[in-house]
C-alpha cells in the first residue's frame, strides 16, 4: 500500500471539505472492507484517506413518516440483527443476512456496500473499468468473461454491479441522501448507478467530494417481496446472479411489479420486460417462467457467460414464486 494522509473528521461538513475534487486525491473510508483491498492491490492510491466513522449522526436506524432511515455507517451486521428490519423489509433483510460473511458484515457499512467497486477481475488487476487489449479491443470480450455482464453490455463497460443488497433496496424504492460542498441532494437508488462509457467515468453518480449519508426505505406498501440468489458456495462467496422482486397485488392479480437483477449488468438491472409480463396476471409457475424469459429477452451473452442467461431466468422465476407464496411477505401498512 502506498503512503497516504489519514484524516478523521467528526461532521459531514468537515468530511466534505477534506475531500478533493478528483478521485486520485482522496477517498472515503467507511468499514474499509473494500477500500483496503483496493489500496493494497494498488488499484486505487488516494493521497488522503477520509475516515468517516467518527461522524456520529451517520450511524443507526430510525423509523419515521418516510419509512426507515438508515445512516450510511450502519453496519450490515447491525442491520442483520435488527428485529424490525426483517419484519418490515424481509427481502432486504434476507439480502443483508446472505451477504459476505459474519466477519465482513461486522465491519462493512451500508453506505460502503452501495459505493463498493466492481469485483471484475480485470479491474481488480489494474486494467480499469473498461479494459482494453494492446490492439484496442475489449479485454473482457477477448478474455475470460465467465462472470461478466449479459445485459447493458453494448458499451465498453462489461463488469457487473457488485452489491447483493442494492437490488432488494431498489425493489423497495430506496432513495439515498448525498452530502456535498453545495449541501445535500437526494436521488433514487435506482438512478444512482450509471454505466460508464469511458475510463474516466465512474459506475455511480457520486462526485469525488461527496458522501452518501443516509438511505431511505419508504414505508412498505402492502405487497409481496422476495430476494433469490444463485450462489455456488454457501458462505463467503458472491452470488452468480440474483433477483429481487416487489409485487403489488390486486386480490390475486399483480397490479404492479418491480423486478431487479443483480450481477447481470454494470448496474443493478431493473427489468421492465419482466414487470410487464406480470402485470394483470395471477402468479403461477407459467407466468413466473414467462417473466423470467422476459427478463432475459434482451440478454447478449459474451463468449463464456451464456449460462448466466439461464441463471437470471431462473432467479427471476424463483423470486417471483417465492414472493407470491408469501415467503418474504412484507408490508406493515
Amino acid at each position, binding site marked *: *500500500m*502506498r*503512503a497516504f494522509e489519514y484524516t478523521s473528521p467528526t461532521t459531514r461538513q468537515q468530511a466534505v471539505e477534506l475531500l478533493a475534487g478528483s478521485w486520485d486525491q482522496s477517498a472515503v473510508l467507511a468499514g474499509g472492507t473494500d477500500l483496503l483491498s483496493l489500496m493494497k*492491490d494498488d488499484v486505487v492510491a488516494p493521497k488522503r484517506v477520509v475516515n468517516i466513522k467518527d461522524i456520529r449522526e451517520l450511524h443507526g436506524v430510525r423509523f419515521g413518516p418516510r419509512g426507515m432511515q438508515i445512516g450510511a455507517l450502519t453496519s450490515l451486521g447491525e442491520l442483520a440483527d435488527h428485529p424490525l428490519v426483517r419484519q418490515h423489509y424481509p427481502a432486504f433483510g434476507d439480502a443483508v443476512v446472505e451477504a459476505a460473511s459474519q466477519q465482513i458484515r461486522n465491519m462493512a457499512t451500508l453506505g460502503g456496500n452501495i459505493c463498493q467497486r466492481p*469485483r471484475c*477481475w*480485470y479491474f*481488480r*488487476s489494474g486494467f480499469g473499468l473498461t479494459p482494453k*487489449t494492446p490492439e484496442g479491443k475489449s*479485454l473482457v470480450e*477477448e*478474455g*475470460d468473461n*465467465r*462472470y461478466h455482464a449479459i445485459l447493458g453490455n453494448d458499451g465498453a463497460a462489461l463488469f457487473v454491479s457488485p452489491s447483493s443488497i442494492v437490488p432488494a433496496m431498489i425493489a423497495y424504492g430506496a432513495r439515498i441522501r448525498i452530502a456535498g460542498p453545495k449541501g445535500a441532494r437526494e436521488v433514487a437508488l435506482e438512478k444512482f448507478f450509471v454505466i460508464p462509457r469511458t475510463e474516466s467515468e465512474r459506475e455511480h453518480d457520486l462526485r469525488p467530494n461527496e458522501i452518501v449519508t443516509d438511505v431511505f426505505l419508504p414505508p412498505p406498501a402492502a405487497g409481496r417481496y422476495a430476494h433469490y440468489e*444463485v*450462489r*455456488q*458456495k*454457501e*458462505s*463467503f*462467496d*458472491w452470488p*452468480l446472479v440474483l433477483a429481487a422482486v416487489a409485487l403489488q397485488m390486486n386480490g390475486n392479480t399483480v397490479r404492479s411489479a418491480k423486478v431487479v437483477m443483480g450481477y447481470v449488468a454494470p448496474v443493478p438491472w431493473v427489468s421492465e420486460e419482466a414487470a410487464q409480463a406480470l402485470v394483470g396476471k395471477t402468479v403461477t409457475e407459467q407466468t413466473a417462467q414467462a417473466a423470467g424469459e422476459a427478463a432475459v429477452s434482451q440478454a447478449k451473452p459474451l463468449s*463464456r*457467460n*451464456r*449460462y448466466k442467461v*439461464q*441463471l437470471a431466468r*431462473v432467479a427471476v422465476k424463483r423470486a417471483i414464486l417465492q414472493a407470491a407464496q408469501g415467503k418474504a411477505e412484507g408490508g406493515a401498512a
Partner: protein
Amino acid sequence: MAEYKWPAPAERTLIGKRISRVDGAVKVSGHAKYSYDYNPKGLLFGKVLRCPHAHARVTSIDTSAAEKMAGIKAVQIVQKPGTEVLWQGDDIVAVAAVDEPTAEDAIRAIQVKYEVLPHNVSDAEPPAGAGEGPAGPMTEDDLENALGNQVPDAQVISDLQKRGVTFQVTDDMTKELKGYGVSDAVINALKAAAYHPEAASQPRSPYQKMAAQTQGDPDKGFASAEVTSEGVYGAPVITHCCLETHGSAAEWPSSDHLLVHCSTQGVSGLPDQYAQALKIPAGNVRAHQDHIGGGFGSKFSPDRWGIATAQLSKSAGGKPVKYMLERDSELMTAGARPSAYARVKVAAKGDGTLVAWQSDSWGTGGPAGAGSPPLPYVFEIPNQRKQHTAVRTNQGPARAWRAPNHPQAAVITMCALDDLAHKLNMDPVEFFAKNLDMTGPRAPIYKEELPLAAELMGWKQKWHPRGDKSEGPIKRGVGLSMHTWGGRGHASNCLLSIHPDGSVDIKMGSQDLGTGTRTAILIVAADSLGIPMNAITLNIGDTMYPPDGGSGGSTTIGGVSSSTRRAALMALDQLFAKVAPALKAQPADLEARDGTVRVKSEPSRSLSWKQACAKLGAMPLSVTGKNPGPGNLINSGVGGVGMADVSVDTETGIVKVNKMVAVQDCGLVINLKTAESQCYGALIMGISYALYEEKVLDPVTGRMLNPNMEFYRLAGLRDIPELMVHMMTDPLNENRGVIGLGEPPVISPGAAISNAVANAIGVRVPFLPLTPDRVLAALEQQQKAGA
C-alpha cells in the same frame, strides 16, 4: 536384544486409540508460532518484484533509485537481464527494508524492462498429429519424462541413438540417474549419444508426445468386447493455496552461519539446498520450524525467494529478513497441480468383465510439461493402449499436490468405468466388485471395503439407474471411486534419552505438517516405555536434531513411528540391564508398564519409573532408533473407497454434496483420531477441487485472474456435508505394520462426486470443477441429443 515389533493388541494402552493432538490447545488459542509469526527485534521486511508477463525476457534492470531510498537495507537481483521468464509472477528483484510499505515503495522504484514474448496458457486438447513427426534431439525434459513414465529401456536406448541429446552428459548426471535405478544399458546409451547443443535453443512445439504404451492385444480386446464406452474426462490445473503462504526469515549469526525459520515440509532437507545456492557448508545452515500452515506437496525447497531472503540478510549485515509470499504470489507461483484430460475408450464383456482400455491423455504442468497420470488407475485391464501428450505452457511451475497424478488418474479412470457401468445397465458397485481381481495385491482389501462403503452410504436405498426421475429441478445421485497409494515410511532417526531423574526426551529433525506427527511420536514412545505421553519432552523441527525425511508421499508416519519404537525398545534394553540386579531378575524378564519397571511374571516385584531410572547412575542413556531398521514395523500399499451423495439443481447447475464416505486402510493405525482427521480433511479438500478450484489464466494477458481467495474458491463450513470415515483396523491390516495415510483419501472424492452428478442428472459433466456453466452445458447437450 529386543524383538522389534509392535505391542500385541492387549498390551497397547495408547496405540490405535482416539487421542487428541498434543498441539491442539496452542493452535486453537493462537499460541502456536508459525514461520510467519517469527518477528525478532530489528526484523527487516522483504518484498519481491515479480514479472507481470507470462513469457518475457528481462532486458534491463535498474535498481539505483531503490537503493538510494531511506530505509532500504538490501537489494538483490534474483534473475539477471537476459533471463527468459516463463510464468507471470516469477521473481526478478528482491529488496529488504525497515518496514513493509518502504519495501513496496522500493519495488515500485525499480525499473525493469522486458521483451514480451508470445505466451501459451491453454491446456486444451492438442490438435491431431501435434507433437508427432521427426523428433529432434532429446532434451533433459524428454529424458526425464521417458524415464519417469516407464518407457521401456529398449525404446529409450533407440531414441538416444537415433536422436542424440541437447545437453552435455556429466558424471554427476549419470550418477544421479543410477541412484534413481536407471539401468546401465540406458546410461551407456546416454553417454554415447550424439551431442547437439544447437538444438537446445530452437523453438519447440508446446506438445510433447510420449511413446505409446501397449499391453496385451488391445485390438483383439476391443473386438471381443460386447459393450464399449467412450468419453472425455479431466481435471484442470489447481493450486495448493496454503493458508500459511511460502516463505522464511533468514539471518546470519556470523558471516558464514545461516539461520532460517522456513515454512517447510522437510526441515532436514533444507541445509543442503541453501548451502548449494549460497556456497557455504551445509553444516553451517540451521533451519527451524515449529508449525506449518499447509504444504500439500509444495514446500520442500527454500525456493528462489527463500534463497534471495538469505542473500538480502547477508547484504544487510546478517540482520534477520522475513519474506512470506503475498496471497496472489502464492497462488501464481508457489505450486500448481498439473492438469490431466483424456479421451478414453473402455470395453467389457456383457457380464461386466473389463477387457480393453485405450486412452489418449494430455495435460500441462507448466513450462516443463507434466508427468502422465497412471492410467488405467487401480484396475489392470488386460489389454491396453495409451498415449500421453505433455503440453508445455506458461501456467506456472507444477509441484507435487497431495498424491501426485492420482486424483487426475482417478477422475479419468473411475468416470470412464462409471460410464461403462451405465452402458452395461449395471449398478457401479456390482460392476466394480466384478472386476476387483484386476486390482492386484490390494484386491482383498477392496473386497472388504467396497460393501462396507456401500453400507455406510446407504447405497442400496439411494442408487438408481442414471437420471433421477423424481419431480422438480433438484436431482439426487450417488457415485463411487477407488484409489491406491504406497506410503512406506521414510528414513528417520529418533534420538531418545532417559535421564537418571526419570525424565525422557526425544529429538528428531522431523516436522508436524498438522497431521499429528508430534502426537504420533509421543503415543509410540509412551506406549513403549509404559509412561504417560506428557512425561516425555519432544523436540522436532530443527536441524540441530537428527535428520528425518521430508513429509511427502505419506511417508512420515511410517518413518517416525518405527524409528521411535526402535529407540524406545533399545533404550529399555539398556535400562533393564541396569535395573535387573535391583529386582533380582534377568533383563529379559522385565517390562515397563504403568509407570513401573517390573518383572513380567510377578508384577508386584517392581520399581517406579523414577526409581528405575535412578539406577542409571550419573549419566543419561541415549539411543538412536532408525528407520529402516530391524523388524517389520512398516509396510507399503493401501486401498480405499470413496463415495458421494449429491444434489444437483438442474435449473442452475449448482451442485451440493449431501454426504461423503471414506473407507480406508493404512495398516496399523497409531492414532485413530488423527487418522480419521486426515480423511475428513481429504474429503473437504476433495469437495473443493471437485466443485470449485481452478487456476484461471487469461488467454489474452497470460495472467492468473483469480489469485485471491474470492474467485479461487475453497469449500467453506456450510459447503461441507456429513462426512463418514471408516478406518480398516482388523488384525489382518494391523499385522501389516504402519503405512502412510496423508494422501490416499484425497484421491477419490473428485471422481466419486463427478459420478454422483452423472447418476443424478443422467449425463456426464466431463471436466472438474463441476461448476454451474459446465453442468448446464452438459444438460443442454443431453437435451439436444434427446430431441
